[in-house]
């Protein structure tokens, strides 16, 4: 349809639908007709732009609300588990960062606290230099293990191993094969996320393993050389 620029008679054919177009509630065909006219009509173009700004602003009216505690961690789980759809490798890695950040928060590791203790490398800052490896058992990936460089270095771990609940011991494997116990955490319904500072440098860490109460290693991670 020809649409002479800002011809009032032509504009009248479209003006009634500008608001609904801005709100995105007109049919695709009608929308394309309106947009075709708007392209050649400065007056309707300005009106549609302003109405679109109103429509966009309407989405902000609900305001901000703090999500429930644990939102980031649950998002990390969903990204990692592939709930809803298969996560990309990128999304899986982000999920580890989210889990690690959530762990850091859960452990009460604030930037201010570390700064006041003389540290210059918070977990979040340390994420700029992270080494990650899959935590697996028998070829099945059960979670992720990562080490962030810094002083001190930190390790983080997320586990999604099924339905088992209980306390597990986390150990890191150092260069030369030495095994060092870092601490314990609890898996609930197969899931757990945990982090702790290391007494050694990140460069010395070659991997990690999880040991159950009976002393059996049920998952391990090996950092690529």
């Amino acid at each position, binding site marked *: 349809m020809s649409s002479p620029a800002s011809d009032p008679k032509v504009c009248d054919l479209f003006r009634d639908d500008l608001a609904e177009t801005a709100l995105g509630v007109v049919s695709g065909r009608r929308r394309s007709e309106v947009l075709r006219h708007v392209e050649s009509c400065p007056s309707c173009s300005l*009106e549609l732009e302003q109405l679109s700004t109103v429509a966009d*602003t309407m989405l902000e009216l609900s305001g*901000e*609300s703090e999500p429930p505690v644990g939102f980031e961690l*649950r998002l990390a789980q969903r990204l990692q588990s592939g709930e809803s759809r298969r996560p990309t490798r*990128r999304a899986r890695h*982000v999920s580890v960062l989210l889990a690690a950040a959530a762990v850091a928060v859960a452990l009460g590791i604030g930037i201010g606290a570390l700064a006041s203790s003389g540290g210059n490398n918070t977990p979040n800052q340390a994420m700029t230099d992270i080494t990650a490896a899959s935590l697996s058992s028998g070829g099945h990936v059960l979670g992720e293990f990562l080490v962030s460089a810094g002083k001190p270095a930190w390790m983080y771990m997320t586990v999604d191993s099924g339905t088992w609940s209980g306390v597990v011991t986390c150990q890191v494997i150092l260069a030369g094969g030495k095994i060092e116990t870092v601490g314990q955490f609890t898996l609930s319904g197969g899931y757990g996320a945990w982090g702790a500072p290391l007494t050694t440098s990140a460069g010395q860490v070659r991997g990690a393993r999880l040991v159950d109460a009976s002393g059996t290693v049920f998952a391990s991670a090996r950092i690529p050389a």
Partner: protein
Amino acid sequence: MGRRTGSNDDGASDEALLSGMAVGDDRAGLTFVRRYQRRLYGLAFGIVGDAGDAEDVAQEAFIRIFRHAPVFDARRGSVATWALTITRNLAIDSIRVRRGIPTDPDDRVFLELTSNERQPDAAAAALEDVARVRSALAALPLDQRRAVVLAALYGRTATDIADGESIPLGTAKSRIRVGMAKLREAVANEDAL
């Protein structure tokens, strides 16, 4: 009009974060979630009215944002609008499944959207466009306000509104058009001052 752009408290613009996510910058994703979780959750809660459902909607929105970050086109709108629209559409899907669209004039959403009391973030309340639209929306006759809110937040077409409220299609379209014109006028007039 004053437009809300990406917060710079983390240094990067929203567009830069999405670009970073698109090329595999993992920290960009984390920063994006931190920046947007309150807004997306707030919108989701405003529509679905249930904390659990709102969390589900907001998380699904983030999952889709991660997935589609590589194809985001800044020429078609802001990151904020894109993210909020994804959230709105998911929230609409959620309530369609669970309990349908509100049409009762006394329904929570029509009252709360015009109330400053429900705005938990004082900084957000200070946003000029939001405050103007909120004020103008409160001043609309209830039938126009309802039509505008149903279209803007619940994606209802004029036909849907006409059917739901047993009014002629022309009346529903008129309510949307006149209501939106008043909101636009309120914002445009303020900008002209």
